[in-house]
């Protein structure tokens, strides 16, 4: 190859590879628009927990969220068919943020419905990322979602008390304390996950202050003022 046909042998193939990559990204962006639409709807639906104590309304919201997750699953199904093999991490910037938000919302729904922490496999199933050929649920996205959940629960604890639910903060306190203990086991590098984890202690503090306020006033159910809870 002489200097004369450099363009033909080097830069033309390169431009072609860029063009095909851009085509794939365009397809991904279009699919993400649909997924993100459902994501916004789930967020809006679940905001009801900060406005009411009514168990039926909250259950109904969870039910709606579940059916919206079905739409999300279809979206990821489409996405799975568009990603070339072995290139998840080439393109995942397009869906990373949405996945983190969806993990948070799935964990919130499971917390509201059942009170425990949803595991990663179940989260992947709710999102529609389980046993896909090209897609999977990235561990760090799942963890980021859990950290977002802690912040939401801190707010929920405050608002529960405002609506007269004095047992919810205790449930949240135990839940977030376990989450905190789990996260402290991890060896995190100085990345975005680490930075987000650093904020977890403020959520823990906020929740504990709510519990303290209740305990001090003897408002904690099943105990007198100051008595330790089993």
């Amino acid at each position: 190859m002489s200097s004369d046909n450099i363009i033909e042998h080097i830069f033309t193939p390169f431009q072609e590879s860029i063009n095909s990559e851009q085509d794939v990204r365009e397809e991904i962006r279009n699919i993400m628009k649909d997924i993100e639409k459902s994501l916004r709807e789930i967020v809006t639906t679940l905001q009801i927990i900060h406005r009411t104590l009514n168990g039926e309304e909250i259950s109904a919201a969870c039910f709606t969220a579940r059916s919206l997750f079905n739409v999300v699953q279809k979206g990821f199904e489409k996405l799975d068919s568009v990603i070339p093999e072995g290139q998840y991490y080439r393109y995942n910037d397009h869906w990373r943020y949405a996945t983190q938000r969806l993990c948070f919302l799935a964990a919130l729904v499971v917390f509201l419905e059942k009170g425990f922490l949803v595991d990663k496999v179940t989260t992947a199933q709710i999102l529609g990322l389980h046993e896909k050929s090209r897609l999977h649920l990235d561990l760090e996205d799942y963890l980021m979602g859990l950290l977002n959940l802690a912040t939401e629960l801190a707010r929920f604890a405050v608002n529960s008390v405002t609506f007269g639910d004095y047992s919810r903060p205790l449930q949240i306190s135990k839940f977030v304390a376990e989450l905190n203990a789990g996260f402290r086991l991890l060896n995190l590098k100085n990345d975005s996950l680490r930075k987000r984890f650093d904020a977890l202690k403020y959520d823990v503090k906020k929740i504990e202050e709510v519990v303290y306020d209740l305990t001090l006033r003897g408002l904690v159910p099943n105990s007198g003022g100051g008595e330790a809870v089993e």
Partner: protein
Amino acid sequence: MSRNRGGKHGRNKPTVGEKGRQVVESIDENNPVIKMFLAFRQELDDKHDRFEKIVKHSRDITIENKRIIFLLHSTNTDVESKKQVVLEEANTRLKQIFEKNFRAVALLLKGFDSYQYQKAYTSGLQEFIEALVFYQYLTSGSFEKWDNINKSFQYMDNGDSISLLFPQIDYILGIADFTGELMRRCINDLGVGNTNDCFKTCNMVKHIYSGFLGIINPGNKELGRKTYVIKQSLAKMELVCYNIQIRGSEIPKHMLLNVIESTDVNTEDDEGYYH
């Protein structure tokens, strides 16, 4: 630690975080959340370790390639046999990098998504391409296409064929860096009087620069930055050729270098004056 009992006296007041502390003290390895996170820790540690191992290989590769490039610059001599010795050594060392260093990276990535670790070795890869292309240019006046070089990144491991991910962008960016070495080469050639080679290298960089100008890749800042650097290198080389042409007959060749270095090189697009 004392537990609060019947706080009727009001002496054992609750404290902030007490409930949380009680929870933490009751947590043990059988707690399902803890079990989950212990497994997560393992997974994250594995990933970080792998990444760091690849970064280390990449650093070794970068250092070795910088040395090879330095070695290749010393072929700027009229003694053909000495030049051949240097080129052969460079060839051997470049093969080593293919067969040992990059193979080690490929083995580390066997069974994993290479794109997840691509940032770990992209700089080593670009530095290698720079050295490889420089060597090929010095031996044959041209260099291999991307898919040819890519073939050398296929390895066998116990009957499995594995390959190292070699993105085209790293090839292109390596070529961009290579033009910087050509600029050095051009100036050195002038210094020893090889004025013919000056025109050849300048010509090569002209073609490469045209190629870069034609790339449309939104969202890649590095490409834009490197294209700018090529432009600057090329301007210097074009000035060298200009001076050879115009002044070559006036002054002895070995003084041409002084003349050129004393002239400011204008690389700004807008103004046409020297500063």
